[in-house]
């Protein structure tokens, strides 16, 4: 008897993707769709898409989606969750979106312990607008607006969001994962599941930061981009779980 061991997740729409070859947004999308299926949440989920390469989330994930202005997804998600506490609410944001223009919104949503889940894709650059310097851009990294390489004296340091958000009382779960090896993908999936569970148990804010690639704007071949994630990127942005709450405050 033939047994199907692998297939397209039900919540992932069967369309051609617009992401560049070697981009990890697609892997993160798949993990998201698989987790929605795993918990049977497809019909009670409202997603919030941001600005950037990820805005077309609604073309790929088969759930209701609202589009937020640049950086404001955690605030839009707050409005959705407050209106519909029985729904599963997530945002999907890039580093330009979450760590630059949207720092205030994400910090305060986390600090309120807002019961939402944030998937944060960190590719150390602004992908959609053509590879400008992001708050997560590595020291020395050349981008279209740091043509000589990021210099901490002038441009500051790459910001570590998973660590920063873990310090907040309202954060129930904060982890950083990567998707550059099958083992990492498995771990990433576990982290996303944990983040979903936090929301389902009303434990508070949960975030998973994905170290991702942008071969197009890094000017790298996809395989070299993988190496960069496995090397210098995960050195500065260590993978791991930064916070995992065992119990909700009100229990």
């Amino acid at each position, binding site marked *: 008897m033939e047994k199907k061991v692998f297939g397209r997740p039900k919540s992932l729409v069967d369309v051609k993707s617009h992401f560049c070859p070697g981009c990890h947004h697609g892997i993160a999308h798949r993990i998201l769709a698989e987790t929605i299926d795993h918990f049977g949440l*497809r*019909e*009670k*989920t*409202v997603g*919030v*898409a941001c600005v950037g390469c990820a*805005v077309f989330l*609604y073309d790929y994930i*088969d*759930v*209701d*989606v*609202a*589009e*937020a*202005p640049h950086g*404001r997804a955690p*605030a*839009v*998600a*707050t*409005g*959705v*969750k*407050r*209106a*519909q506490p029985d*729904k*599963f609410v997530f945002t999907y944001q890039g580093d330009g979106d979450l760590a630059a223009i949207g720092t*205030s*919104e994400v910090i*305060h949503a986390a600090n309120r312990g807002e019961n939402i889940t944030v998937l944060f894709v960190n590719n150390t650059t602004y992908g959609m607008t053509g590879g400008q310097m992001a708050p997560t851009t590595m020291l020395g990294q050349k981008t279209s607006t740091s043509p000589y390489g990021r210099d901490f004296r002038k441009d500051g340091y790459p910001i570590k969001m998973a660590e920063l958000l873990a310090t907040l009382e309202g954060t129930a779960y904060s982890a950083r994962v990567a998707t550059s090896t099958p083992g990492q993908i498995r771990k990433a999936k576990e982290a996303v599941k944990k983040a979903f569970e936090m929301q389902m148990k009303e434990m508070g804010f949960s975030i998973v930061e994905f170290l991702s690639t942008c071969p197009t704007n890094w000017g790298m071949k996809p395989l070299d981009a993988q190496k960069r994630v496995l090397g210098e990127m995960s050195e500065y942005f260590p993978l791991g779980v930064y916070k995992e709450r065992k119990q909700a405050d009100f229990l």
Partner: protein
Amino acid sequence: MDQRVFMKGNEAICVGAIAAGCRFYYGYPITPQNDIPEYMSAHLRAMGGTFLQAESEIATINFILGTSASGKRVMTSSSGPGISLMQEGLSYMAGSELPAVIVNISRSGPGLGGIAPSQGDYFQAVKCGGHGGYRMPVLAPHSVQEMYSLAMLAFDLADKYRNPAMILGDAIVGQMKEPFLQTTYVSTVSPEKPWALTGCEGRPRQHVKSLYLKDNAIEVHNWKLHAKYRRMQEEEVRYEDYHLDDAKIAVVAFGTAARVSKTAIQWARREGIKTGMLRPITLFPFPSSHLDEVARRVDIVLVIEMNTGQMLEDVKASTTCHDKIRFLGKPCAMPTPEEIHRELRKLSGRGE
């Protein structure tokens, strides 16, 4: 049952909003509208609703966006500088066709300006303060009664057009206390919101969005929005005619400026000066054709505003009788009845 109550304008807005079924309020403190979040914080949670104080007006308007996308009636209030921060979200909401009620109890600007009552946010409210070009119904109450009734109307207009609606007041209508009749709210719109994002149970997934990249989709979308604003202009013009029938001087004023003008008009009438007022209640849509008709009939059109002449531009755009138009304005204060009365006397040829 209708009942007479005595309260502040800012509170009357809250009572009207709650009567209209608003159970969600988000906001951020700014003078002179703090009575509104204070009232909502004291009442909404107790009745099972949601009050949430945001970290900024930017967050506020995006809470609003999310709650509106969930199909709920939702309101915020602020004043000039805060409304400026909401413009990004307002543009997204107009583009995404999301209803909500935004109250601007405006102060004097630009910049941090002052907290004196002003009508300096007319341009921002009626000409679309955010990017891309959009409109919203703008209601201008001039009494506590109207703070109550226009709050209810604003929710119906927002839902009817799937668009934000604004109440534009100032510190005086906000802070003044007077009795008003608390009438029963009767909805004029269907409560159904099939477009709301409620999880796709039993239906295909749907989206609330304003991004249209493919082909000429954004052009099609903009024409659709434009048609909606045209329909507002056809169906929603509201104004009050005050002693206009035999008037030779027609004052045009809204909100507090109109309220004060009424006193001056009464004084002038007692002296036999035939004067009246056209008071726009909707600033968008502007009562243009009625204004033109009045302007043709009278000798003088006196525009009175608590700014340096913003509605004046719409008055001029409404009529060709430009030689009849005069202006009396104060950017950061209420013109007194004495000042207006003196102006009416002067214009009627009675001198100072």
